[in-house]
């Protein structure tokens, strides 16, 4: 054997020892870390299991919240509807009252007018004429001015209350938006729950191969449908960005109208355009689109 080769091999072994010496403290740290992290991982495992058991409860609570919300909204609507109906009937009653008042007063006035005319022919009673005529004027004014003004004022106030009642009803649209948002949260909880269940199942399967039901848990793709639906007290289809509807409620319709306005010129000559034929703009949805694109979109709409 070449003595130089032996020398080289010894050199390599020496280098290995040097490396081992350098690695040893790191290996010790690694062993220490693993021994420390094992109980932490057990804690995490327990934590995941605890949270997993709590999640169906969180979903149930969300279902209760949305149901209570919806019931309260219905109660408010019922009450406002009753109020509105009452108000509308009061307004029409007032109108009738105004008419009744007018009829009641008009007849005596006509009578007084006749008397006044009769008296005017008798010389000695003529001196009372100004007084009688004044009375007639006052009676007429009483009807046209006082009663009518009061009744009109009440009618106006009642109409304003009816408007307010309608505003309350319109404000209740927030219930749809909040329930969609809660449905989105519930969907997220269910999603996390299913992911945790998969993780847990994988962990326990590796340990003892016990959990056989992991396959039954919904995968992330099950939630990735076009219209997302979350099961709360009823199946609620939701828009994950529904909350934007509240945040930007004043500007959103303007933005929509802006897009619609640019479609104002409708090409009626193109009858019944196929929806597929206008799909060329699909990829540009986040960009400004040209009038040609829009005209293509609106080809078939009357």
């Amino acid at each position, binding site marked *: 054997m070449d003595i130089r080769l032996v020398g080289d091999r010894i050199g390599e072994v020496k280098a290995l020892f040097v490396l081992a010496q350098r690695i040893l403290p790191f290996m010790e740290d690694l062993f220490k870390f693993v021994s420390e992290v094992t109980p932490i991982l057990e804690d995490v495992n327990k934590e995941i299991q605890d949270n997993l058991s709590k999640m169906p409860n969180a979903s149930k609570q969300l279902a209760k919240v949305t149901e209570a919300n919806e019931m309260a909204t219905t109660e408010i609507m019922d009450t406002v509807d009753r109020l509105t109906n009452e108000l509308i009937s009061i307004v029409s009653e007032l109108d009738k009252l105004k008419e009744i008042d007018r009829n009641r007063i008009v007849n005596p006035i006509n009578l007084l007018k006749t008397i006044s005319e009769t008296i005017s022919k008798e010389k000695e009673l003529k001196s009372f004429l100004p007084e009688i005529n004044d009375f007639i004027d006052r009676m007429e004014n009483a009807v046209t001015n006082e009663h009518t003004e009061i009744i009109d004022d009440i009618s106006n106030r009642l109409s304003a209350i009816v408007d307010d009642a309608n505003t309350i009803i319109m404000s209740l649209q927030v219930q749809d938006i909040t329930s969609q948002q809660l449905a989105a949260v519930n969907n997220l909880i269910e999603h996390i729950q299913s992911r945790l269940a998969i993780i847990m199942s994988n962990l326990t399967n590796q340990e003892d191969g016990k959990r056989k039901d992991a396959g039954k848990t919904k995968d992330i793709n099950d939630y990735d449908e076009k219209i997302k639906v979350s099961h709360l007290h009823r199946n609620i289809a939701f828009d994950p*960005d529904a909350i934007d509807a509240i945040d930007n409620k004043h500007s959103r319709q303007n933005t*929509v109208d802006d897009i619609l306005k640019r479609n104002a010129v409708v090409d009626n000559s193109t009858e019944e355009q196929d929806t597929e034929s206008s799909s060329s703009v699909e990829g540009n949805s986040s960009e400004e689109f040209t009038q040609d694109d829009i005209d293509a979109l609106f080809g078939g709409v009357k």
Partner: protein
Amino acid sequence: MRFLVVDDSPTMRRIVINALKTFGYLDVVEAGDGREGFEKLLSGEEVDFVITDWNMPNMSGLELTRAIRSHDSFKHLPIIMVTTRGLKQDIIEALKARVNNYIVKPFTPAVLKEKLDLVLGQNS
């Protein structure tokens, strides 16, 4: 004039119907999702105007619009989409499906009236 109001939220259906009532439109049929709405049309329910939500289980408002537009008997029905969805791509999708107008929730009665009059004017 008979309206078909389609929304999975009972609150929203009631709000739309309430608004229609204040405009003097009292004749309304309602449905809880697109499938129910389309089934009502197929069953011969006489409808002159459709107001539909977008996000609904079973059949969305977009799918309902497409179904209406591709059916010989209903393809000319005026449709207004009333939805929380307000992204540009959503509006484009709705336009491609050929809705006549588009309203974002929460809406005011004035906006609904304006769009109704506009669509009715276009269709008269």
